[in-house]
């Protein structure tokens, strides 16, 4: 694993003023559209884990991605998916893994949150914070019926980023994208 640190995450969109960089714009478009392998309803751009698409000094396309959790097992699959999508579009790229600034659920776009809800996953409630009290529970609205009467079944769900909830109004179980 190669860990790279960048302190200035920028969404590069063809910085050259003289000539529009169509390949770079295309690379950004293609990379942005890659779905998350475990949450196919959202793209890497929706999740905020696509940090930048730019060119290095040699002109090569560089895509920077960041993991959600330290041990997220999907990291390599996501990196390969982006690289493969770009190759299919005829673009050679280098994928870099960046860890700072750390990803939080605050990076999920509004569009991403709405897609999660429509898919049946309650989006994170509130903004990323620190330690919370024992037995404290987020008030999570049911993504299906909207009821606030929900119960946490387990802090840990089918993936590291989700908790498991049950709606007490419509009785549906659902995943909650934990706020971190």
């Amino acid at each position: 694993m190669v860990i790279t640190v960048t302190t200035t995450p920028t969404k590069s969109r063809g910085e050259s003023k003289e000539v529009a960089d169509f390949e770079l714009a295309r690379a950004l478009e293609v990379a942005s559209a890659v779905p998350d392998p475990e949450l196919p309803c959202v793209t890497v751009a929706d999740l905020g884990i696509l940090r930048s698409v730019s060119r290095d000094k040699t002109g090569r396309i560089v895509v920077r991605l960041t993991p959600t959790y330290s041990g997220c097992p999907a990291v390599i699959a996501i990196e390969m998916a982006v690289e493969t999508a770009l190759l299919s579009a005829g673009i050679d790229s280098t994928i870099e893994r960046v860890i700072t600034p750390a990803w939080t659920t605050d990076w999920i776009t509004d569009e991403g949150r709405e897609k999660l809800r429509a898919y049946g996953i309650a989006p994170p409630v509130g903004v990323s914070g620190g330690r919370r009290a024992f037995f404290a529970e987020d008030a999570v609205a049911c993504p299906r019926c909207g009821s606030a009467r929900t119960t946490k079944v387990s802090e840990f769900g089918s993936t590291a980023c989700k908790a498991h909830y049950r709606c007490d109004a419509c009785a549906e179980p659902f995943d909650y994208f934990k706020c971190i």
Partner: protein
Amino acid sequence: MAAAVASAEDAVLRAILEIADDGLILGHRLSEWCGHAPMLEEELALANMGLDLLGQARALYAHAGALEGKGRTEDDFAFLRRERDYVNCLLVERDNRDFAHTMLRQLYFAAFMQPFWHATVQTSSDETLRGIAAKADKEMSYHLRHSGEWVIRMGDGTEESAARMADAVNELHRYTGELFMVSPARQQAIAAGLLPDPESLRDEWDETIATVFRAAKLELPEIRTMQKGGRDGIHGEDMGHLLAELQFMQRAYPGQTW
């Protein structure tokens, strides 16, 4: 490796390996619960927490290898050292025993590491360490909450669960002193501003444990002599068995990759 630290670079490498080994060994211990947890939700929780710790360890090993500059990879550190070269604290290698032991061990560790990573984000002069810490801080706050809630439920639970939790306290509390002990290598890393001084985290740890124990109706034991040795590579009997399983594939099929 357990011998005197030769240079400032060696000290930094060694200090990073201490926390990386803590994560690897505890992560492996949690993975041993796969297929054995008391219920499905805890099966997922234990595996998830183990993954967090392995992920943190991998990032730290990769950073250690890059700092050392001799081409050692995360696999070299994780799988191909001898027992005496692992410098994890003794607490993390203790056998899982039962769910009470496992959750109490997790509480002791997370109650220390969450403030540790939090302080690293705030103060470390090493940008990569700050990046690793920023993720680990959030992850450990989850571990702390999850394990603390279980210690409270079991301590203040049935006669059986309370007895098991009290037994776990009697067995494991003596290993918590090593969390705060500073090896010569760690001292250099602290002096260089890379890692926080554990002593500055003691009040918070004491308070967290006291809060949980009050709610769990558990007594804080009086420990005269805290166990130590892990940071010098002196491990307990449990460690050899753990490494036999952890290292088997790389020893049997050297250089294999997935």
